[in-house]
């Protein structure tokens, strides 16, 4: 039956992450932005608490017990993921993105790695010290068009030599490993693409620069260089065998695309958390300082009603995408819808909140920071335009038209 009531487990994770966001993340958010980094001692501390950024629930599949009792239980990892992420991003998005863990590098390893690779790369996220994973697809000349990447992977004895440059890589410098997408044969287009796990310290692999950004300043955005970088064949995601099988449809491009269906709802949930933070902050000020009637009251009523509704709309789209993923139903269209809508809506919400704060909003209020932070949520993990393309393709699929 249709229901928007959270399960007990969902309620618990929401309450727990909200507590963490309010009591641990928020207090350091403005300071971290100013420092342009999250303090190391804070990261050590939260890592000891076992708090990680989990961007997928693929692991639920791979580690699921197969007892009759468990197999009857409905999966809810994706729904819990979006609930938790909304709360964390409500605390602060830059700090949330800096939390230890596999981050956006987790889903490709979980969905496409061999059992040995999953164990080797995902078991490092332990409480002794904070560690990160990262995901490197974008290049200076290829972002939205992921099929156009130019980083090359040349087969040599025992592995591959990678050459190329990657940009806009979240946590790229601090990551213990990065999932790097490269092509073994550019003339084969998507079919020639492969995904490699490149480990920190590998010869020829370096971080050349950290980007200075409009927002999300506390979170590291790296440029990575691969210069004759040798990657052993056991780090080819999925192993060589999977690409050699003639029936296999696995390509690096598909590895990249497959993860979007689970990561886009997570990114959408973050945008919703940011919008909600701006809305709540502004609502408090309106309730306290605004007149109770007249022109400004009407202005605030109209704006806040629209803002509140847009946030609810984005959340329902996001829940739907996550629900479908939990049930194993195709959700590419819904994942694109929630990402497209949330990315755009959240900026609009922050802008409207700034309108209500007036010139005062420029001075020491968090909403202007949220406005700067949130813009990129309409860009990364697929721009708004790419999401429209994905939605339109699914919409026209029944008619055999590829747009």
């Amino acid at each position, binding site marked *: *039956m*249709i*229901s*928007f*009531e*959270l*399960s007990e487990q*969902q309620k618990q994770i929401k309450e727990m992450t909200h507590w963490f966001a309010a009591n641990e993340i928020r207090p350091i958010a403005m300071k971290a932005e100013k420092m342009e980094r999250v303090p190391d001692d804070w990261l050590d501390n939260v890592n000891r608490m076992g708090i990680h950024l989990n961007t997928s629930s693929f692991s639920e599949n791979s580690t699921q017990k197969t007892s009759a009792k468990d197999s009857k239980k*409905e999966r*809810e990892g994706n*729904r819990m993921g979006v609930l938790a992420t909304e709360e964390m991003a409500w605390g602060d998005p830059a700090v949330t993105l800096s939390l230890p863990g596999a981050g956006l590098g987790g889903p490709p390893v979980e969905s496409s790695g061999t059992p040995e690779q999953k164990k080797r790369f995902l078991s490092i996220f332990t409480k002794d010290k904070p560690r990160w994973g990262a995901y490197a697809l974008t290049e200076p000349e290829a972002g939205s068009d992921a099929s156009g990447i130019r980083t090359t992977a040349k087969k040599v004895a025992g592995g591959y030599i990678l050459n190329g440059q990657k940009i806009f890589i979240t946590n790229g410098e601090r990551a213990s490993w990065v999932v790097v997408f490269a092509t073994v044969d550019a003339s084969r287009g998507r079919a020639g693409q492969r995904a490699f796990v490149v480990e920190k310290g590998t010869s020829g692999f370096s971080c050349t620069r950290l980007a200075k950004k409009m927002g999300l300043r506390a979170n590291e955005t790296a440029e990575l260089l691969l210069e004759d970088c040798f990657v052993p064949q056991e780090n080819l995601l999925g192993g060589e065998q999977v690409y050699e099988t003639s029936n296999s449809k696995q390509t690096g491009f598909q590895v990249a695309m497959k993860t979007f269906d689970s990561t886009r709802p997570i990114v959408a949930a973050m945008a919703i958390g940011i919008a*909600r933070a701006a*809305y*709540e902050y502004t*609502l408090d000020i*309106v*309730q306290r300082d*605004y007149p109770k009637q007249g022109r400004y*009251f*009407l202005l*605030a*009523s*109209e*704006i*806040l*009603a*629209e*803002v*509140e*509704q847009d*946030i*609810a*709309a984005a*959340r*329902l*789209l996001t*829940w*739907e995408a*996550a*629900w*479908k993923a939990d049930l194993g139903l195709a959700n590419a*269209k819904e994942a694109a*819808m929630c990402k*497209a*809508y949330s990315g755009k809506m959240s900026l609009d919400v922050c802008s409207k909140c700034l309108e209500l704060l007036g010139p005062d909003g420029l001075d020491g209020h968090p909403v202007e920071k949220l406005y700067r932070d949130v813009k990129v949520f309409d860009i990364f993990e697929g721009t708004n*335009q790419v*999401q*429209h*393309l994905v*939605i*339109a393709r699914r*919409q*026209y699929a029944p*008619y055999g*038209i590829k*747009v």
Partner: protein
Amino acid sequence: MISFRPTEEETSFIEVAKNIAKDKIRPIARECEQNRHVDKNLINELAELGFLSLELPEYFEGLELPLITQVQLVQALSYGDLDVVQGLPGANDAASIIRILPESTVTNLTKDVQINHGTAAFVNTVNTDEVREDRLFITEEADGYILQGTSQPVRMASFAEYMIVAAKNSQGKSVILWLDNHNHWTVEQGDYRLGLLASGLGRFSFDGVYIPKNCVVAEGYTADDLLRQVRTRIRILQAAKEVGLMEAALDYVTEYTAERKAFGQVIAKFQGVSFRIASMAMETRISNHLVKEAAIKADEQGSESDGLASRALYRAHRSVRYITDSAVQLLGGHGFVQEFPVEKWMRDAQAQVSLYGREKDLLFQRGEQIIAGTKEGALQ
């Protein structure tokens, strides 16, 4: 547990409604508009299946379905044609009042007449800020009320066998009256051209009609509380109908643009077209979810259901205008002519929006609730 899947029973019932919408309603929609009433055979078929009494209580020979089920059914039927659905006989908006009233009250009101399957209209003039050409006045007498003046246009005026009138007297007291004597009103047929032309649009005129105490449904705070609950239910049901129209327009124009060629290729290949389709798909889905969320809250009788209903209807109004306008736009000149249904859908949509609450007013109402401290909508 968060879930977007209807029950098996709902799925079967929706399938029946959707098939009727496609096979029986849509083909005759133009004809119904021209005749300014819905085809009798269709009415009989829908009545037999119970589609005309979804909201009515069982003692009133209704199905008494929860709102979450009703919204899915009226949405499926409206996929055929909104005007036809709005022109179907039965208790219509008055059904929600009958649903909420205690059985004994309804039995008393209807003891002298057999109207279980009759057609009703609902005239609600309690919003005294509303600007009107001719006002409807209600005056309290010692043992009843006097109705004088003319109502705004409402659905079902032309077909009504009984009606429920909600109004405020000069002291600001709300009163709800039950009228089932035809001699008490006349209907001004008017000059309606925009849309929902099969829905019996008209104004009720009252010339100093005396309504005795035994026809008073509720007064004062009781009436206010009743009207708030009724308003919630009507808003949700009307918004659901708008979602049905949105789905119809989206599917129709997706198919059209997948086949229509220009500049040597199907126009779906142009991003100016396909991106608009994507936006329409998102808006439709959003309205759908907001309506269902409000319906569930109303079924639970949650305190926030009134606010969720106004936001669902506001969004549905905004979306249905955008989507039906987009449908006309994407068909180009063909969208403007009557060989294609989209021009009618755009007209119907705008008429529907005009009848059921001013958009900005819905927004202000919701905003006032939020500022007054009702945050739960966005906060969950």
